[in-house]
């Protein structure tokens, strides 16, 4: 069982996302972006190329300047989101990235550079990103203390 957040967890989700046919066409097809996921002090950089998530790697805070955008929630919110995805085999409408981004005072999708073109990739590939996290329903997740 993989612990969220960890290298192992992202690699397992990548494996599901990259190998399950239903995720490939889902959301619209090819997706090219580099983004990060920030969970407390833990940051992971993910690279989407074509129909696959080609890499996930732990990075430091400075690396946020290199990504198109990053997704940040409180660790407890990440946990609730992932549990919701597991329960419903995909996020229900209260826990999609879009809803989370709409409902919170502080946005989920952020950019340290303020580059609107790159930040907009969150919306242009929104469904593909959603399907990436939805793929976590197919693995067993343990949450760190």
């Amino acid at each position, binding site marked *: 069982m993989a612990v969220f957040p960890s290298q192992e967890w992202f690699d397992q989700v990548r494996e599901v996302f990259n190998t399950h046919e239903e995720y490939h066409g889902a*959301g*619209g*097809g*090819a997706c*090219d972006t580099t983004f990060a996921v920030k969970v407390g002090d833990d940051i992971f950089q993910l690279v989407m*190329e*074509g129909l696959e998530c080609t890499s996930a790697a732990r990075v430091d805070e400075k690396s946020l300047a290199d990504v198109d955008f990053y997704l940040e929630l409180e660790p407890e919110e990440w946990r609730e989101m992932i549990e919701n995805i597991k329960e419903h085999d995909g996020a229900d*409408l209260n826990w*999609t990235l*879009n*809803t989370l981004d*709409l409902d919170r005072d502080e946005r989920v999708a952020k950019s340290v550079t*303020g580059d*609107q*073109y790159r930040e*907009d990739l969150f*919306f*242009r*590939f*929104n*469904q593909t990103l*959603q399907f990436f996290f939805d793929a976590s329903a197919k693995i067993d997740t343990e949450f760190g203390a």
Partner: protein
Amino acid sequence: MATSSRESKERALEKRVADITPEDIPEPKLNWMGRSHQWGTRVKAGKKGMTIAGLNVGYYAEVPEFWEDQTRMPRGSMAGRGGVPPIGYSVRHKHELWADSAGDLYEEAIQRRWIPSSDIPWESLEPLPEVVEKAMCQLCTELCQHANVELETITSWQQQLSYGYHEVKMYLATESFDATRHFEVFRKRALANGGGLGLESRGEVNRMILESKGGWTETVAVLHLLRGVFTHTIYRHGMKFAHNAAEREIFARCLQDKSRHLVYGLDHLKYAINHQDDQAMILEQVLAIGERFVLREMKDPVIREALAIILGGGIEGARTHGMAAYDHLMGDYFRQYLAWCDWLGLSRRRTFPEELKTYLDK
């Protein structure tokens, strides 16, 4: 008599053909061969395949500041045939239409295309309370009009845009098709669940966009920034409040398309502002006028009430939290609109209409 005359002509023709010798056939001149600015070009496909932007190498990468030609000559080919009637393109300066991202957006649009008839799980539609269905159909009617205004506006400008900037023309062709798809999908939603199309919008903003003739850049400002951000915001909230998987998929797909449209708009406006004196001041004036149209149209209760019912889950819900949710939606719209104006360096906050400012805190 007539038959005899025809036979006579045919015999004469046969004789002329029989008399032709190889010496009578003109030697091909082939003087069109080799007329190329850069022969021997071999573009290789990159990680994303053979992309339109990837073709911009050597001579073919030169995108001029002004496109002299008034014909359909592809950029990089040789001019000078003479006698080709001019088309009369009016948008010939790069700063009037260019966006660096246009080629990539074109590729993205054709790679991520979708089909409303088969990509939407229409079977997931279920009967809704009658007032909610009526509100949903009214919203679909409004969104059909957003889409057909986008389609007509872009297509009416296409013939004015020079071929020197084919990336932009190609990208805008995909945006026209996206708009067609959005028109299609909202019409289908309205007619697929026991309802039907609703009331036509008063269309003051629609008319302002369609009648924007000052320049393509000014049209982009009202179509992509002023209207586009509103449509984008409705798609985001529509996805959040979807009643079933079909609606969720409709709004999600449209949101991705609309986000691409906004990027072209932002990218072009940034380019125009950075390359043309006074462009920012002109756009500030255009947007100030447009904001008044938005304000005037907001006094029409139709779309406000329909959205409040959808967001509130019914008429009772509309009276309580639905109207607050509508105010929040409009707040999201104006906050995003002003944030992008700020990013573009357009001063809109100080003279933003007071009535619209009230939404910024909601």
